[in-house]
């Protein structure tokens, strides 16, 4: 009987702990969201009332659902007032971020960093550099969001695997939606209009992930992406040509199918290698796109008024009105032959065959989800430095703040003092803006960052 009793106790304990794990917490309008997150347990749901929140938020516990409560059109607004760097940064696995209006941040609107099994749903993000930016994530979904005004990509999936980007609306960004150095991802049912370039699938040099493949772009509306490129001239996005529906820059195994692609002035789709963009600087990266499959799409009125660099490129050829423009030496690419699909540079391309269709693909996510490794302090330090601090600090130069080299010189003997500054900065340097306080990151993470900066970075 003892045995049975013990068993019963375990069941009760499990029930108790599962009920404490699934608590629902509430943030009263305008109060500190971070304070509630700090009290929350893994698995909790945090409901945020409508109102204005001039805050940056950091979530590194697993299983947190952060949900904005709506009251008609009214939803909680995170406002960085062009002073704070990031809206929401999350590195906890299985995080859900939904229902927020995010605006006025200097860096990222909503970013996940190293979070697996994430969900970013139904947010409205204005401005910032990157709007919604999952990086180093496995198995996640970005769905039902609206993103506008970003100087780089509105929705920017970087170095991630098995990601779905579904039913979002992006307009007025330099790039509407981008997959960068990402593997196995599906982009579907999105409304992408009035960006400088609608959709970009890129493989950039110099990053830890050296390949990109298995990308499906299906059933999106990619319309009139002719916005002037307003990226600052020093940024990578400044090189993105205006008037492009879909840009494919070096990934392999790309399927473009059943999209409505119309009124993009320069060309419907540009498939280019990195050499053409002057980006073939990473010897480990194969700069060519192989196995790009441009299947049946609904094309109309593309390429009618080529702009900027595409105009330059096409001038000697005298061509306009191109659906597909190719400057890429890759292999095994194909284009569905159809009336009214004009292309240039497709001499080596073949005709696609019906079995290449991805019409039945439902998700790029893994059944059962991705593993959820617990990050070490070292990993956390590097991840958060990359997500947050590198938005304003560079190693060997002033960026927004002073160089890391000069910071190391100041604090090499005093990590505690550095942490104290980062939590509550005081204005020191003439001609520099003020650094926003980073106390929301919490002591443990700040300690990891400080340790990384002083003992690892640049050594």
């Amino acid at each position: 009987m003892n045995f049975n009793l013990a068993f019963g106790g375990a069941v009760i304990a499990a029930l108790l702990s599962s009920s404490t794990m699934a608590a629902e917490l509430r943030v009263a309008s305008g109060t500190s969201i971070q304070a509630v997150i700090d009290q929350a347990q893994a698995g909790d749901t945090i409901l945020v009332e409508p109102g204005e929140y001039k805050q940056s938020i950091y979530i590194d516990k697993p299983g947190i659902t952060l949900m904005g409560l709506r009251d008609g059109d009214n939803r909680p607004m995170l406002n960085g007032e062009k002073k704070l760097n990031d809206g929401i940064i999350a590195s906890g696995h299985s995080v859900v971020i939904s229902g927020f209006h995010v605006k006025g941040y200097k860096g990222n609107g909503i970013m996940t960093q190293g979070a697996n099994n994430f969900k970013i749903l139904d947010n409205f993000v204005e401005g910032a550099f990157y709007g919604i930016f999952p990086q180093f994530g496995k198995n996640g979904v970005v769905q039902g969001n609206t993103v506008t005004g970003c100087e780089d990509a509105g929705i920017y999936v970087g170095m991630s695997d098995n990601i779905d980007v579904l039913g979002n609306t992006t307009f007025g960004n330099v790039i509407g939606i981008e997959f960068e150095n990402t593997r196995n991802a599906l982009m579907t049912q999105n409304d992408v209009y009035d960006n400088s370039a609608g959709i970009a699938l890129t493989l950039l040099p110099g990053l830890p992930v050296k390949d990109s493949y298995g990308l499906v772009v299906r059933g999106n509306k990619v319309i009139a992406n002719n916005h002037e490129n307003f990226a600052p001239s020093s940024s990578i996005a400044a090189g993105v040509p205006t008037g492009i529906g879909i840009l494919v820059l070096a990934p392999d195994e790309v399927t473009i199918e059943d999209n409505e692609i119309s009124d993009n002035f320069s060309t419907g789709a540009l498939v280019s290698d990195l050499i053409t963009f002057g980006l073939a600087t990473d010897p480990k990266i194969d700069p060519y796109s192989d196995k790009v499959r441009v299947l049946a799409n609904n094309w109309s009125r593309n390429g009618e008024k080529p702009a900027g660099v595409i105009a330059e490129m096409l001038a000697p050829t005298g061509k306009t009105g191109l659906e597909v423009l190719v400057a890429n030496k890759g292999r095994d690419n194909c284009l569905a032959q159809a009336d009214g699909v004009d292309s240039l540079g497709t001499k080596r391309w073949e005709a696609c065959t019906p079995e290449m269709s991805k019409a039945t693909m439902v998700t790029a996510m893994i059944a059962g989800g991705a593993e959820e490794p617990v990050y070490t302090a070292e990993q956390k330090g590097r991840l958060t430095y990359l997500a947050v601090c590198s938005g304003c600090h560079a190693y060997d130069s002033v960026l927004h703040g002073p160089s890391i080299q000069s910071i190391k010189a100041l604090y090499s003997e005093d990590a505690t003092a550095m942490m104290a500054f980062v939590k509550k900065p005081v204005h020191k340097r003439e001609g520099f803006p003020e650094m926003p306080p980073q106390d929301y990151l919490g002591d443990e993470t700040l300690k990891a960052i400080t340790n990384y900066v002083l003992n690892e970075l640049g050594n």
Partner: protein
Amino acid sequence: MKHRPGLTAALLSASVLAMATAAVAADSGSVLSDMSDPALLEKYRKEATERIKCKPIDDWDARMEAYRAAATSKWDRAGMGCAVEYGTQAAMELSVPSSAIWAFVTFRVDNIETNLEVLGANLEYFDVLAKSYSEHYQGIELSSELHVRWEQTRQRCDELLVRVEPLIPDVTEARILRAAYYLASTVKETPLDKQNEAVAKATAELEIAIKEKPDALNGLGQLLLGQVLFALPEFLGGDALRAIALLEEAHKLNPADMNAYRALAEAYLGERENDKAVALLKEALATDPAGVNPQDYVDAFKFLGGLGIRAGLPELAAQFADKREAMLKEKPDLLARKETAAFGHGGEDPLTGKDPSALK
């Protein structure tokens, strides 16, 4: 010319759509748009101009000596910058005859050579600068310095070229160097239409030069033209097969040239000629470092090792790494070129802590 400048042509890529674009003012309040404020840029450029000023040297011999002392110190952006400045000043004082025949008659062939040599050193300096830009995003302090240095180098070359130009019909070397200037000076800090113009002008000149005198400057003409033809899309005159033939010729004419190895190995891989690429990489691995600028050696070995990884041969990459590390150890002043992050891009892999360009 006894010594041809070992131009780093690997970066003279004919980027049709490269990153340079006309600046459009952004006002989203992002950090990057803050940093592109014209007044702020002006301030940083002014500071950079002051900071990088070289100590004046008045005496001709002393200038020439200072030039020779550091004109190939590619690991020292500041030192080499001053050296090429002194060399340019010295060269500008030499009278250059207006034709090659006249030069022989008046015994001023040496003056022509000095002018061309110093021009070559300035072109190499473009490459040193180009390699100083970070892969993704620049901080404003560094980008301002590089901008100022770039414009100064451009100006020095323009001054030297005015003197060299009359010789071009007679001296193929001068023609090649002018073409190299078009390419090297437009890699950065140049609007796209000017870049395209430069590529077109250089291509035309190089076509003439390689017919005129195929072995001029040990095949530099073929090396540059080969790279341009490989980079251009077919419908704009690109021709991968002819590019490879030209690069093979360049390699034969100058077997110690690290840039020929880079360009040719890259082209072989691009054409899926992996066997040829691997054979070439193995040949490069055996290069005697004594005949190569040590910074070029370690840079090229990093690149070639990376190609080895791409070709599926990690053991070969490791051999490049070993030789490179030995050289870095022997000459601690050399730059290892480890990228660090800005704006969420670059730096080591945050999960493993590993440098993404590491060869093993």
